[in-house]
């Protein structure tokens, strides 16, 4: 399990998510939803693992999970409204 959470495993997941998000680049609607979901997943990985928020008190985890979720929600929500 440790290997799956190590920096190299997280790097591999970040690269996979980058490829997944790039697959629907320049699309609108559902295609852009895939882009933003991939970006939000990447941000979540960076915050939890590289910034090590998974070891922080719950209030701090909530703050950063909230910031990441809000970023994705605002971009995707306003894209859908356009």
């Amino acid at each position, binding site marked *: 399990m440790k290997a799956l959470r190590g920096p190299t495993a997280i790097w591999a997941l970040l690269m996979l998510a980058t490829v997944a998000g790039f697959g629907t680049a320049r699309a609108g609607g559902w295609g852009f939803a895939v882009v933003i979901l991939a*970006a939000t997943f990447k941000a979540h990985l960076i915050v939890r693992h590289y910034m090590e928020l998974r070891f922080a008190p719950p209030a701090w985890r909530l703050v950063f999970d909230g910031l990441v979720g809000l970023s994705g929600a605002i971009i995707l929500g306003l894209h859908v409204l356009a």
Partner: protein
Amino acid sequence: MGDAASHRHRPVPGILTFIAADTANFILFFGYFMVERLHQPALFARSAAQLHIQLGLLNTVILITSGWLVALAVEAARAAEMAQVRRRLLGAIGLGLCFAIVKAIEYGVKIADGLTPQTDAFFTFYYVFTGVHLLHYAIGMALLVATAVMARTGRTDTGFTGWIESCALFWHMVDLLWVFLFAMLYLQGAR
């Protein structure tokens, strides 16, 4: 990054407050851009299509890989393996320099094509947001270089682990902000 149970509820570095506030500030940027985009989605999609998506992708890969090396350098610092810390930081700094070179090429090509901050609303946002991000990147690079110098000169006895952890947090924030900027500016098409 060791076993989770042994690291539960570590003390939170003070820099985390700044990072949270700065990230919140960028969320306002994202909202401002997306609200403006509501008024002219076709123009924003047309202008976004003129960005070099491959250069944006390349910079994403560069920052992700640089962040990985910094995370490995923090691990090495905790294990007091200073030679590893130096090597990994130098790798991260080298890749970081590539980010600036790619960005300079991108700006140069855009300006040569006549696409400046005055071109339209999209390009105003593009230059301002990527410029503010570049400022964060420059601060992050300066912190990495200072950390590498400390590791090289052996000034690592008091508080070095806390220092490198804080610098790493800042560098990961640069990566975090780029993830959303890349998606919003480069990868967004019209509905």
